[in-house]
């Protein structure tokens, strides 16, 4: 009853029973681990700071959403630049993508904030934070968009030419709709990454979710009580996204 080959539909009963089993096992492992801790829980102190958690969480949502939008724009421009006939533009995009993908986000945030932003007199750390996140995600997105564009076969571009579409019309009506459909699953994954990565902005004192939890920990000396809500708060964002991704994937699916 609990067996089913991957890719096959799963019966409702089997689904419920299996999930219950998994939940039970996870609960058993964690309750054993925590019971070994001999830890004096102090949820009272944490409850006192609930507003602070909520505020940090909302800032994280806002930062991530802005970074996602900006990274889409940056990714699109970089993907088009990499396909540009103007070589300096193409190589600049290549340099950007390879540098960003080859270095840790932490280093990028520090350099962007303490060196670049400083040099150009940008003081708003929220702006720098969103910029860092979107430059980082944009590099990955540009590669996804580029491979999406390149997956549209030459025969289709030829058909588009034959029916008299201009280059812009071809992108608008033939290439991009197909890229968007392909992009939905990796894009939702990217959004989840941005949400988690935004926790790194705490090092430049952006008052997001993680920083607020750290502060609560500092005030209350209740480490676990401060960080467990943190895990739950991130899961609350990333789980629905991953579910949404599956729904969209099914909706946009079409055979080629």
């Amino acid at each position, binding site marked *: 009853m609990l067996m089913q080959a991957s890719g096959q539909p799963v019966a409702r009963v089997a689904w419920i029973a299996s999930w219950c089993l998994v939940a039970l096992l996870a609960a058993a492992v964690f309750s054993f681990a925590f019971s070994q801790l001999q830890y004096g829980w102090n949820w009272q102190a944490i409850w006192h700071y609930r507003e602070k958690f909520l505020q940090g969480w909302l800032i994280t949502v806002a930062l991530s959403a802005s970074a996602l939008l900006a990274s889409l724009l940056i990714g699109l421009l970089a993907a088009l630049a990499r396909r540009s006939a103007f070589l300096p533009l193409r190589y600049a995009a290549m340099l950007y993508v390879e540098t960003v993908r080859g270095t840790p986000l932490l280093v990028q945030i520090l350099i962007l904030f303490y060196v670049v932003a400083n040099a150009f007199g940008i003081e708003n750390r929220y702006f720098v934070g969103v910029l860092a996140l979107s430059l980082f995600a944009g590099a990955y997105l540009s590669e996804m968009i580029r491979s999406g564009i390149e997956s549209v*076969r030459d*025969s*289709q571009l*030829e*058909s*588009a*030419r*034959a*029916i*008299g*579409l*201009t280059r812009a*019309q071809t992108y608008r*009506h*033939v290439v991009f*709709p*197909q890229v968007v*459909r392909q992009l939905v699953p990796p894009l939702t994954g990217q959004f989840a990454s941005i949400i988690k990565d935004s926790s790194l902005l705490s090092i430049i004192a952006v008052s997001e979710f993680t920083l607020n939890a750290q502060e609560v920990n500092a005030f209350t000396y209740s480490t676990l009580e401060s960080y467990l809500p943190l895990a739950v708060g991130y899961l609350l964002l990333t789980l629905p996204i991953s579910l949404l991704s599956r729904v969209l994937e099914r909706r946009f699916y*079409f*055979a*080629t």
Partner: protein
Amino acid sequence: MRLDCCAISKQFGPHQALRNVSVSVAAFQSLAIIGPSGGGKTTLLRIIAGLEIPDAGYLRIDEQPLDFSEASLLLHRRRIGTVFQAYNLFPHLTARENVMLPLVVVHGLSRVEANATVDALFERFQLSRHADRRPAELSGGQQQRVAIVRAIAIKPRFLIFDEPTSALDPEMTAEVLDFIAELRDEGRDLIIVTHNMGFARQVSDQCLFIAEGQVLEAGRSIDVFGRPRNPLLTNFLAKVLRY
């Protein structure tokens, strides 16, 4: 219609696909282009369709010289219907949307007008049942018929087919060839490259034989098929008609 090719050459890397091709077909309704593989049929057809620019030479269609600037080629392509061997349709659009796309985007019809046009054409060519399917849900023959409907929906000056059935099995081939013959009977002008000699002979009034980048024989189809003069053509016909 009338077609004049004057000293057309086209080179791909070291390979000369068309060598100084000059040919005039003074009056035809349906022109078949035949010849061995790699002879240059597709290259000539693509030049006529405004998809390829020759290295040298020029072309007149109905006495009008074709200007090879991108802007006028775009206008030229918009006025003719081209159907390739396969993959004509866009996979993300349904049959209906595929036909509507050029009508709305290129030819400025409203969606309502375009929808009505598609309905009428699909009805007439028994495609209504498939209107809302994507290409992957259609047979190869149905895909080609939708592609042909897309080509005629824009009311083109003439139609161009490059081996429209070579990717199909015999039954689907018949379905598509019948469709093309029907269009010919309606009086539409067309130019077709095909490996199907029986069909070429039956559907066309004029015929070109192209091999090694040159037009080696041109004339009425009855003569080209019935009394071939060029030894390469005789040879070619003997070979393809053997089976």
